[in-house]
C-alpha cells in the first residue's frame, strides 16, 4: 500500500438515525441535504418518518424499565462517562458545530466545552435531586410519610433548532438523568452534531433505547410524537418562536395528558445555569404512608 497523497479521496460518512442503540436509515428511504452555514453541501441526513418516530417510542419504552431502576449513582456515572467521551471527540465536535452554526472557532470551542460541563453538572444531580425535591412530610398522625421523585416515562424532546450541540445536550441530559427515556428530534437544519452525539452515547454505557435521535423535518415527526399514546411527556423547546405549531402539539398532547414543557418565545440562552426546572418538569412525586406503632 502506498502512503496517501494530496489527491487522496476522503471517505465520507453516512448520517443515519439513532434508534434502540442502532443506526438505521429511515424506513421511508428518504434523506435530505444538509448544508453548512455558508450554504455549501455538508451531508445527506436521514429524513425520519412517522414510522421511525413510532419505532423510536417503542425503543424508548423498552429501555425505560431497566434505565429507571438503575441506581441514581449509576446513572450519574454513565452521564459522566458521556461527558468524558464527548471531551475525547472535542476536535470533531468543534468542527461540526462550527460548520453547522457558522461560529468562529473560539465560539465553537466554547460551545463544545460548555456541553461537556453541562453533562457533568447534570451527572452530579443524579443522586441529589431527590434530596432537594423529595423529603419527609410531618403528618399529624402516627404515620411515616415521605415523598420521592420518580421519572415520568418516555419523553419526546424537540431539541432546539439553533444550538445544535450545547442546546441539545442541555435538553436531553435533564430528561434522562432522572431515569426517563426519550425520543429526540434534532435541529432540522443542523443535525450533524446530534448524530455524532449519538455515536458518543452508543459508546458511553448508555443502554440502547434510552436516547433515540431522529433527524428530518419537525412537521413529519412532532405531531406523531405529540399524539402518541405511549409518550408521557413532551418538551417543546425546539418549537420556540412558532406559537401556532406549539399550540397544536400541546393540544394533541392533551389526549393522554402528557406533561408539556411549553415552547419559549425564543430559544433560551443556554449559557445560563439551568436550575432544576428541566428535571422537575419530567418527574412525578410519589408519596408513601406507613403506620408507626408497636
Amino acid at each position: 500500500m502506498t502512503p496517501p497523497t494530496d489527491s487522496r479521496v476522503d471517505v465520507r460518512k453516512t448520517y443515519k438515525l439513532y434508534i434502540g442503540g442502532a443506526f438505521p436509515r429511515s424506513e421511508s428511504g428518504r434523506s435530505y441535504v444538509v448544508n453548512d452555514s455558508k450554504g455549501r453541501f455538508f451531508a445527506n441526513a436521514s429524513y425520519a418518518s412517522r414510522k421511525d418516530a413510532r419505532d423510536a417510542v417503542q425503543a424508548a419504552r423498552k429501555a425505560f424499565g431497566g434505565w429507571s431502576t438503575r441506581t441514581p449513582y449509576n446513572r450519574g456515572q454513565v452521564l459522566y462517562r458521556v461527558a468524558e467521551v464527548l471531551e475525547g471527540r472535542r476536535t470533531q465536535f468543534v468542527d461540526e458545530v462550527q460548520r453547522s452554526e457558522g461560529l468562529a472557532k473560539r465560539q465553537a470551542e466554547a460551545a463544545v466545552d460548555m456541553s461537556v460541563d453541562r453533562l457533568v453538572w447534570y451527572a452530579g444531580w443524579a443522586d441529589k435531586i431527590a434530596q432537594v425535591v423529595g423529603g419527609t412530610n410531618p403528618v399529624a398522625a402516627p404515620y411515616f410519610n415521605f415523598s420521592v421523585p420518580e421519572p415520568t416515562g418516555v419523553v419526546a424532546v424537540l431539541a432546539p433548532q439553533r444550538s445544535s450541540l450545547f442546546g441539545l445536550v442541555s435538553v436531553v441530559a435533564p430528561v434522562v438523568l432522572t431515569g426517563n427515556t426519550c425520543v429526540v428530534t434534532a435541529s432540522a437544519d443542523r443535525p450533524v452534531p446530534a448524530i455524532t452525539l449519538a455515536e458518543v452515547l452508543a459508546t458511553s454505557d448508555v443502554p440502547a433505547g434510552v436516547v433515540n435521535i431522529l433527524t428530518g423535518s419537525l412537521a413529519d415527526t412532532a405531531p406523531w410524537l405529540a399524539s402518541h399514546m405511549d409518550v408521557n411527556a413532551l418538551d417543546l423547546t425546539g418549537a420556540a418562536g412558532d406559537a401556532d405549531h406549539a399550540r397544536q402539539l400541546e393540544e394533541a398532547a392533551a389526549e393522554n395528558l402528557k406533561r408539556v414543557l411549553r415552547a419559549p418565545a425564543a430559544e433560551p440562552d443556554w449559557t445560563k445555569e439551568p436550575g432544576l426546572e428541566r428535571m422537575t418538569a419530567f418527574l412525578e412525586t410519589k408519596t408513601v404512608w406507613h403506620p408507626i406503632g408497636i
Partner: protein
Amino acid sequence: MVSTVSTGSTTGSENRFVYAPALESRSVVDIRSSYGLFIDGAFVDTEGGRSFKTINPATEEVLAEVAEATADDVDRAVRAARRAYTRVWSRMPGRERAKYLFRIARILQERSRELAVLESIDNGKPIREARDVDVPQAAAHFFYYAGWADKLEYAGLSTAEGGPPKPLGVAGQVIPWNFPLLMLSWKIAPALACGNTVVLKPAETTPLTALLFAEICQQADLPAGVVNIVTGAGETGRAVVAHDDVDKVAFTGSTEVGRLIARTVAGTDKKVTLELGGKAANIVFDDAPVDQAIEGIVNGIFFNQGHVCCAGSRLLVQESVAEEVLDRLKRRMSTLRVGDPLDKNTDVGAINSAEQLAKIRELSDIGEQEGAGRWSPACELPAHGYWFPPTVFTGVTQAHRIAREEIFGPVLSVLTFRTPAEAVEKANNSPYGLSAGVWTDKGSRILWMANHLRAGVVWANTFNKFDPASPFGGYKESGYGREGGRHGLKAYLR
C-alpha cells in the same frame, strides 16, 4: 420454628469446608522504604527528622518508615493550605473544583486494586472488604461530593446573614485507623467540594493509603496546598487541632479524644464535627427473619474485626427466641474464617495493633471476671501478628463493662428483653448514640423503634450500610455533626 441441629462450642468445626488458599497478589503495590510529609503539593522531610514505623498487623513485618510531623511541620502545612485557599481554591468556580474531585474519583476507581491491597496490608482488614467496601465507597464519596461543588446554593443552607453559603477556610482533619482511605474520603471530599482546603492527619498505624492518596492528588493535578497530609501520632493531631489558623476541626475517633478536642477549641471560632465511639444495640424481635438477622448480627459485629464505631456490639434478643438465635449465631460463627487478610476467603482479619489487641483482651477478661459466659468457635490463629477470635458473651447485664464500654473488636455482648419498650430502654441506656439495628417483620414497629431510639443511624433488617448520599453521625457522646449526604455539606459551610 426451625429446629436447630445441635449446639455446643465445637459445632461446625468438624464439618468445616476446606478451602484452598486464594491469595491476592501483593505485587500490585509498591511500598517505599520511607515516606515524607505531603505539604504544598510535594513530599517533604519533617523538620524534626523523626520517623515511626508502620507495620503489617497480620505479620508484624515493618512496611515503611513514616515521617512524624512536628508542630512546625503542621504549621507549614496549614500555611500552605491557607495560601491555596486564598489564592486558588476559594476563588475557583465550583464547576472547576468539581472536575478535580471527579478526576480523583476516577483515579481511585482506576487504581482500586492497588489501594485495596495496600489497605489490607497496612490495616489487617480482609482484602474482600477493602476491595468491595472501602475503596469503592471512597471513590463513590468523591463522585457524590464532586457533584455538589457547583450546586451548593441548592442545599438549603445559607450564611448567618442570609446569603449563599460560603466555605470556612482551612480544615484540620484527624482520622482513625479502622477505615483509613474511606475516612479520608469522608473528610476530604465534602471539605474540598465546599471550597475549603485541608490538612489531614491519618492514624499512625495506617498512614500508607493516605500517602498513596497524596500521589493521586498529584496525578489529578490538584493545585498545590489544597490537600496536605501530615503523618504522626497524638502530638501531631494535637498540633493540627490547636493551630490558630485552622477554621474547622473534623475528627473521627474515640470519645475520649473527642472530649479533649472539644475542650481545646472552646472559646475559639473553630467549627467542629466529631464522629466518636458507639455501643450500638442490634435488636432482634421474635418475628424477625432469623436467617437474615443472623447474617446481620455477624456483619454488625465481625465486619472489619469489629473495628467499627457503629458496630452492633450489643445484641438485644427477645427472650422467646433468644435460645434459637444464640444457637444459630454460634453455628454461623463457627464458619467464619479468621486469618490471612490477603486471602480472598478470609472473613475476619488481623487486629490492627498490639495496643488494640491488649485492650480487647483486657475487656474480654473483665467480661469473664464479671460473670458473663464467654464463647468462641474453635479456630486456629496464625503464630505471628495480632489476632482475636470472634467472641460472644452471654448472660450479660447492663451493668457489665462489656455492655457499657466500646471494645472495638470482634466481641459481642448478648442481652435479652421482653417488650419493645424494654428494648428501647436498654438500647438507649448508653452514653453513646451512634447507630442501632432493628430486626422484625413488622413495618410499623420498625418505625416506632426508629422514633424512640436515640441514635443517629437506625438500620432496619440490615446493618452497617453506608452510602455517600446518606448522612452518618451520632447522638449524645457519639459526637456531633453529620457526614455524608446533603447534611454533610453543613459541616464545611458557613
